[in-house]
């Protein structure tokens, strides 16, 4: 049975995330083993990899680096073997070249660009951007967004104060509006990342997770 590895590097509780992946897999009729793991070998063996993350960019980066062998295992699986990868929230932001939260911190460098403070065009808008906002897919159709593109008004749950600004606009697969467009989904090749929390986004989120699990990049 193929394994989906959700990387545990001390950034929040991942049990409910694992449950969401289990539910989405069952709904999609997929027999997959979902594991929450801090073991680089388990990540190396996994068919698909999920990198979650809550809190600050610098803390998440430090947490990931602190797991011995994890970053090399992640790079080998994603860069060399082309395993499908999903980053969630700060896990998505870590795909960037660098983050500017608190200090300049290098990211995994998979999607060129920076993670910068959210500064909504309308000063009355609150930061963090917290709650349900509508997703706007853009560019060519993407398999991971198939369910979202089919929905009438897909809303997802966001909570963040920084946003990923990719250098190449074609890496932005969906935006949401918060005093201007805010990057909601990034991707290229076998990589995809969501600023929102699919595991907290009820039906829309479960659909996106199922589409990721079905994805053959």
């Amino acid at each position, binding site marked *: 049975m193929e394994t989906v590895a959700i990387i545990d590097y001390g950034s929040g*509780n991942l*049990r409910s995330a694992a*449950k969401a992946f289990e539910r989405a897999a069952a709904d999609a009729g997929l027999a997959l083993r979902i594991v929450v793991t801090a073991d680089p070998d388990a990540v190396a063996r996994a068919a698909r990899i999920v990198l979650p993350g809550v809190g600050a960019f610098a803390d998440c980066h430090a947490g990931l680096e602190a797991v011995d062998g994890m970053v090399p295992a992640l790079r080998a699986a994603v860069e060399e073997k082309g395993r499908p990868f999903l980053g969630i929230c700060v896990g998505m932001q870590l795909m960037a070249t660098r983050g500017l939260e608190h200090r300049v911190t290098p990211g995994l460098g998979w999607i060129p660009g920076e993670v910068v403070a959210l500064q909504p065009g309308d000063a009355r808008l609150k*930061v*963090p951007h917290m709650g349900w906002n509508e997703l706007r897919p853009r560019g060519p159709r993407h398999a991971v967004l198939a369910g979202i593109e089919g929905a009438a008004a897909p*809303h997802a*749950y966001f909570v963040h104060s920084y946003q990923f600004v990719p250098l190449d606009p074609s890496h932005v697969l969906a935006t949401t509006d918060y005093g201007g467009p805010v990057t909601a989904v990034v991707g290229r090749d076998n990589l995809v990342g969501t600023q929102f929390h699919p595991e907290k986004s009820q039906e829309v989120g479960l659909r996106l997770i199922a589409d990721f699990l079905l994805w053959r990049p």
Partner: protein
Amino acid sequence: MLKVRLIPCLDVKDGRVVKGVNFVDLVDAGDPAEQARIYDREGADELTFLDITASHENRSIILDAVARTAEACFMPLTVGGGVRTESDIRRLLMAGADKVSINTAAVHNPDFVGAAARKFGSQCIVVAIDAKATAPGGWEVFTHGGRNPTGLDAVEWARRMTAMGAGEILLTSMDRDGTRAGFDTALTRAVSDAVTVPVIASGGVGTLDHLVEGVKQGHASAVLAASIFHFGTFRLRQAKEHMARAGVPVRPIDRRPA
């Protein structure tokens, strides 16, 4: 556009829902996880559990309900009541809560909020403020269900808590709580306009128009209600439809067939 959140709140005592409505489709009306599933199905944007368990020994009972809820409802879950230490926060987050709300402990030790935000991230630290009007345009922070005055100005306190790292403010008018007379929208507005983080209005909802007032007059980012849903006076679906008709942006109800 960001939508206004509608948040049903369940009061939980010794692991059981207090004042829960006996929906026909509930196997066990006293089970918070069962109630949560109903609200999930009806389009709640988030859930809040308020643990009103009096004895410290029985506090851990809530963890089981949190775990069972988090495994079945894929939406944000906040738990408040008796959160006093970093280990209380850790246990709730590990059980599956996404946010915790801190009330009395913040008043006793404001640095606790800062430490918690640094340790767990502002995104999961909600500061709950219970306020009472003390003068026209003036509100004081109270603790212990409105019994103990603190001498703190509610608007200043909200600013200070935000500066310490609170990611959200849950603001309850103790004058209105339980009255069904509507939010204290002047209080809600004063606090909402004073802080950069989202404010959840709470206390006093008796009609669906009250929910609209919390947003339009109170400038709240989210509205919380307990009894109108518990007693089955209104269903969540009706509330969202009403808010949408009144021009409040709400998330369309998104549900797979049950």
